[in-house]
């Protein structure tokens, strides 16, 4: 028997945290780590932004700039956009939402976390001068096998450790969902967050080995003299791109699907009505999973692959707009005839949906191969994925932090900080990334610390920097709100948002043994979005 620990979690001892197998504590450790890494990589992003404000080199030299870009990309993709919601919220919420005591393999779960922790330490090692990785998060050979690229081995081992962690988590979560649901929880009354989480982990399970293979061959090429990617000895650099993108395209759905889950949890709660088109949402999720493995060539539209495959993958890519469109229409549908309460999690969720709408519409020209030939590897694509991945994910996760803050800490997140930070982040991000897309359309290539002194480009870059500063202040205020909430937040009631979902039936913060018994009692007509009664505040 595990001993009950004192709540709130802040009071648990260090030993308890280190040896814990409790899914809630592991979730909180993931979330804290990824938030800290988010702040560091976000700061890298600001430096990158400042460097581009004017033509010429102002603050950093190209080599250091390349390190900043590599770190910004890799850390935000792997730490913020995957670990925050799969490792963090996934761990914390999955057993609570399906009415289980813990995940299926608690010790494997702890192993996942410690592998992830190891990867985090390796990332910190790259901060030491001389350990910089400068080959971009994509790590394309032959560049990655040159001396100019930095310490490729660190990059490979980081991917391996994160990969081990991801695969173990995926096995764990999928098993948990299949075997450990409380009686009465079935496929058609599972929370959307759980549906999206499981879909994302299916992608992880299928995809991660492919990425691991790609980077392993990179390691062998660079240090042991094999020639997988060396064209002079019969290898092919495009092999890497194919194997790499086979996982690294679907991974964007790993990153966004759980955020769709957040939107689908938060919007009905604050709209006081059921999620519109719940069943089609589930079909859409699995439609996205299926299509996600058939589109990777759109990252290689100008890489020299044969024309026919570009056309086929142009069609499959653009078809992804259909299931993602369904989701946006359904969230808007949920707002119809609702009784909307505009608390800060709702603002974040709605803001995230609007960012995703722009991100989705600007994804279409990247799928249309004829347009892509003119905008590939320009700042347009950078602006586009900062809308979908950067901002939709960030707004979703920040909204989720405020929304589940009471269940994690027993305190309320200060509402004023939530609202203020939302408006700053939303306005700043739109100013930043919209004009990034414009300058990209004009032709500005990506990954450029310096650019020719073309007057329009210069003006557009200055507008972006203003946006980035506003965005940065917004994130800072959000972070102060987290600390303030932890230290002096109002004591949270068990169900502050009057949600119908299972995780709100237990005390805040969530007790160590979750529901007390093995499973909670789930009434026959239970549904997480059954909003039939007026809320009691």
């Amino acid at each position, binding site marked *: 028997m595990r001993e009950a620990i004192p709540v709130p979690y802040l009071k648990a001892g260090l030993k308890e945290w280190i040896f814990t197998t409790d899914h809630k504590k592991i979730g909180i450790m993931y979330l804290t780590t990824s938030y800290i890494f988010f702040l560091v990589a976000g700061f890298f992003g600001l430096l990158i932004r400042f460097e581009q404000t004017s033509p010429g080199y102002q603050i950093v030299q190209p080599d250091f700039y390349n390190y900043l870009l590599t770190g910004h990309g890799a850390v935000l993709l792997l730490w913020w956009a995957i670990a925050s919601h799969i490792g963090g919220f996934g761990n914390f919420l999955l057993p609570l939402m399906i009415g289980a005591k813990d995940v299926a393999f608690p010790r494997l779960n702890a192993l996942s976390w410690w592998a992830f922790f190891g990867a985090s330490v390796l990332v910190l090692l790259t901060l030491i001068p001389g350990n910089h990785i400068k080959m971009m998060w994509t790590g394309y050979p032959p560049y990655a096998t040159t001396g100019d690229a930095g310490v490729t081995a660190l990059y490979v081992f980081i991917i391996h450790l994160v990969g081990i962690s991801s695969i173990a988590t995926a096995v764990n979560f999928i098993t948990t969902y299949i075997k450990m649901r409380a009686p009465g929880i079935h496929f058609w009354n599972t929370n959307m967050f759980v549906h999206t989480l499981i879909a994302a982990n299916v992608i992880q399970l299928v995809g991660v080995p492919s990425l691991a293979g790609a980077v392993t061959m990179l390691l062998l090429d660079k240090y042991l003299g094999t020639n997988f990617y060396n064209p002079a000895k019969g290898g092919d650099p495009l092999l890497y791109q194919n194997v790499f993108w086979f996982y690294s395209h679907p991974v964007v759905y790993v990153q966004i699907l759980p955020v769709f889950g957040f939107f689908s949890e938060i919007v009905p709660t604050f709209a006081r009505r059921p999620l519109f088109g719940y069943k089609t949402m589930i079909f859409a999720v699995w439609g996205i999973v299926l299509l996600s493995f058939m589109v990777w060539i759109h990252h290689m539209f100008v890489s020299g692959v044969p024309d026919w495959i570009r056309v086929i993958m142009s069609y499959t890519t653009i078809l992804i707009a259909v299931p993602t469109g369904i989701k946006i229409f359904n969230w808007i549908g949920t707002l119809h005839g609702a009784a909307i309460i505009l608390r800060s999690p709702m603002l974040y969720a709605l803001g995230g949906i609007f960012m995703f*709408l722009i991100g989705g519409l600007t994804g279409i020209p990247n799928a249309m*191969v004829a347009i892509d030939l003119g905008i590939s590897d320009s700042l347009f694509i950078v602006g586009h994925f900062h809308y979908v991945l950067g901002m939709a994910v960030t707004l979703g996760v920040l909204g989720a932090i405020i929304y589940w803050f009471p269940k994690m800490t027993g305190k309320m997140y200060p509402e004023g900080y939530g609202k203020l930070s939302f408006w700053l982040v939303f306005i700043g991000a739109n100013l930043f990334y919209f004009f990034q897309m414009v300058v990209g359309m004009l032709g500005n290539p990506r990954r450029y610390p310096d650019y020719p002194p073309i007057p329009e480009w210069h003006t557009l870059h200055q507008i972006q920097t203003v946006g980035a500063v506003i965005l940065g202040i917004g994130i800072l205020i959000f972070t102060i709100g987290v600390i303030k909430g932890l230290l002096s937040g109002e004591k949270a009631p068990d169900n502050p948002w009057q949600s119908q979902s299972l995780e709100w039936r237990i005390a805040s913060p969530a007790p160590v043994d979750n529901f007390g018994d093995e499973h909670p009692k789930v009434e026959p007509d239970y549904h997480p979005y059954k909003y039939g009664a007026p809320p009691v505040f």
Partner: protein
Amino acid sequence: MEQVFALPAKWWFEAVSVWLTVAVVIYFIVSIPGIYFIMKYRFKPGEREIGDHEKHGHWGLEALFVIVPTIIVLVLATYSFVIFKKQRTAPPDAMTIKVTGFMWGWQTEYLDEKGNTIKTVVTSFNPTSYEIPEDQKIVVPAGKPVKALLTSLDVIHSFYVMPARITEDMVPGRITHLWFQINKPGEYWIFCREFCGTGHSHMFTKLKVVPPEQFTAWLKGETNLAKGELKINEEVVR
């Protein structure tokens, strides 16, 4: 008749405006009802405390959400396919150049019908500014299609002809291609857009478009390699 400035940029701009129109229309179709609902259906204590809890969806509406977007995106993809064919197929009267990328510059060879090199121009690395010596510019005739065969000496680069709005990667061990035609004499940017290391942002050159007679005369002149000041940095990076 309107003067066409550059190909395949003309079709590219058409495709962009088609996409932009569709995107803006869809944006308003989605966001206007969204914002209207947020304004209208507010929670009011004692008055409006629960939403339409009976409505879980509407199959007709959702079928519409599937069918209409599917048709729109398939039309867009097919439209882009048609343009893509034109972008990738150089006109038969195109002249051929071969451009080789290296860290961080370009070597351009002008080929005759048999594939023999007539003239070579090398653009060397300029890490400090975006100025380029006159004899390092890539010169092409105005109004004539140019097919560029692309490859690389070391890592992957790319060849982005900005006025023509066309890019293709330069991959070591492979020959890729693109074509373009600029009708107005002048000087235009060419950039590398595939990340290639420290000098990536200064891997650029100028495309100098001149009237055809001037081009013929220029082609007979000597290569800038003859001066012996330039050489490609062939240091093996591996």
